């Protein structure tokens, strides 16, 4: 492609690289990206408003579906806030079970990410193998909670399902398999040269930029920003467990990969600890239907970063206000920064590298692009194409008719 004249490429809302309807408008100079506008909001459903019209119990299931991949994170963050407002003291066993599911969810999410990352750089074999092994943890979650995704485990005042002894054995067995497999992926990720070539040096965010742009989760930790709510603001059972915050100083996609793989290993040890010291006792306490007036802020370290939930009750069955801040919103600020002067080929992996979960992000918001027209209709794309030809000397104006697909020739 001649480097004369910039071309605008709309990526999404429907695009193979994005499993979710989001739209990035890349301004290309040849293969180089010189500007990127992002538009979210295709997933904007208006959940926060809907919560105010639903009872707390119904809200749990609605909030859980803010995002399907980190469903447990959102529902836990929500019920934590509600329980704090209601002043409920939870049985420790319930807290441990929440932690257990949370860590299993992290495992499934990170394995999923590894596969998607492989897919984005055309390494489908990695996708196939990681997702094959991910089924182990999916089965585990299914047998523990009753569903592969959207577990519906949390309820106000505890958890709905207990963990039996033989299930504990299952868990330990599965964790052993997964750990061994993960070790293998570590070697692949650190030695497969075509992989490293595509990952290292891509999507760089320096430590200072990461702090300034308020990145969270693995994205921040890969720029050696030590942020992990599990340690900074312990919830559930994390106060009583020991784990270390995995960071990396690569600052790039490769670093994010290493961080996630490292966190997988941490999660395995955490799960083992939880299973080992899980206290006995009830898993739930009676919770009132009416939650007293009051407010609470709840933070939760989701696989993608920090979830922030704010709940205010007004003594009725329905919340007065529910506010959700999903990790991707904090991170999406960084993406445009990462993509500057990168190749089009890197776009997919860079966007994937923050492990975007736009459906969380969009539960209420939609980021307008940083300047410029955001997403182009096909007509606009064509207009661009033709304009761009004229600049390179060819005139196709007479062909610039509106785009109609229906006709069969």
């Amino acid at each position, binding site marked *: 492609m001649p480097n004369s004249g910039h071309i605008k490429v709309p990526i999404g809302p429907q695009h193979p690289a994005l499993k979710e309807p989001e739209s990035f408008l890349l301004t290309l100079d040849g293969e180089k990206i010189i500007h990127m506008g992002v538009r979210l909001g295709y997933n904007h459903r208006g959940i926060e408003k809907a919560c105010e019209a639903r009872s707390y119990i119904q809200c749990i*299931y609605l909030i859980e579906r803010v995002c399907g991949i980190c469903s447990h994170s959102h529902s836990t963050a929500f019920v934590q806030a509600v329980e704090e407002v209601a002043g409920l003291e939870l049985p420790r066993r319930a807290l441990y079970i929440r932690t257990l599911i949370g860590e299993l969810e992290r495992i499934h999410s990170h394995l999923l990410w590894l596969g998607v990352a492989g897919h984005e750089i055309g390494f489908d074999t990695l996708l196939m193998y990681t997702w094959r092994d991910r089924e182990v943890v999916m089965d585990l979650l299914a047998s523990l909670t*009753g569903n592969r995704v959207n577990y519906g485990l949390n309820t106000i005042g505890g958890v709905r399902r207990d963990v039996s002894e033989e299930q504990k054995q299952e868990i330990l067995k599965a964790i052993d398999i997964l750990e061994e497999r993960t070790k293998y992926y570590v070697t692949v990720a650190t030695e*497969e040269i075509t992989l490293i070539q595509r990952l290292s040096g891509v999507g760089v965010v320096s430590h200072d930029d990461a702090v300034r742009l308020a990145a969270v989760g693995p994205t921040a930790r890969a720029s050696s920003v030590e942020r992990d709510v599990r340690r900074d603001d312990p919830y559930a059972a994390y106060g009583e467990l020991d784990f270390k915050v995995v960071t990396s100083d690569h600052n790039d996609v490769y670093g994010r990969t290493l961080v996630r793989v490292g966190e997988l290993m941490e999660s395995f040890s955490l799960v083992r600890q939880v299973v080992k010291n899980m206290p006995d006792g009830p898993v739930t306490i009676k919770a009132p239907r009416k939650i007293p007036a009051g407010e609470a802020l709840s933070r939760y370290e989701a696989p993608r970063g920090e979830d922030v939930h704010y709940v205010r009750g007004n003594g009725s069955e329905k919340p007065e206000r529910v506010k959700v801040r999903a990790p991707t919103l904090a991170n999406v600020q960084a993406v445009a920064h990462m993509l500057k002067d990168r190749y089009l080929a890197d776009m997919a992996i860079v966007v994937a590298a923050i492990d975007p979960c736009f459906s969380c992000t969009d539960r209420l918001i939609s980021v307008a692009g940083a300047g410029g027209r955001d997403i182009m209709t096909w007509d606009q794309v064509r207009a661009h194409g033709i304009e761009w030809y004229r600049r390179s000397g060819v005139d196709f104006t007479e062909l610039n008719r509106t785009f109609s697909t229906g006709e069969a020739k």
Partner: protein
Amino acid sequence: MRWPGKMVRQVLFSVVRKPATEQYPFAKAPQCERFRGKLAFYAEKCIGCKLCMRDCPADAIEIVKVGDKQFEAHIDMAKCIYCAQCVDSCPKKALEATQDYELAQLTRERLKLVYHAKPPVVPAADNKPEEVAPKS
């Protein structure tokens, strides 16, 4: 010099290994017993407290009074999110989440499920509602 193709051993091994693929739908693996599938309703147990309707996040279930102490359930499987909150809420265990997940249908109407109340004379021998052929 590092050579590409680190996964080669693993990959070649899978040629001789049996694929990880399940044979579904030709051979059906059993679901885990906690699985939350299609809802079953036992009319003879229902007391019409309608707690299920009250707690359902997607108002997918409706309990209709058809006679004195007789209730029937109208469940819209297209609305149900299979969270089984109603099962937990029901004080009389009149609802149960079955293992049945093969719910796909070609029309929306086919997803509406109606459990008729039994006439009280029939003893509640088995907990299955009567089998009724789909009316066409």
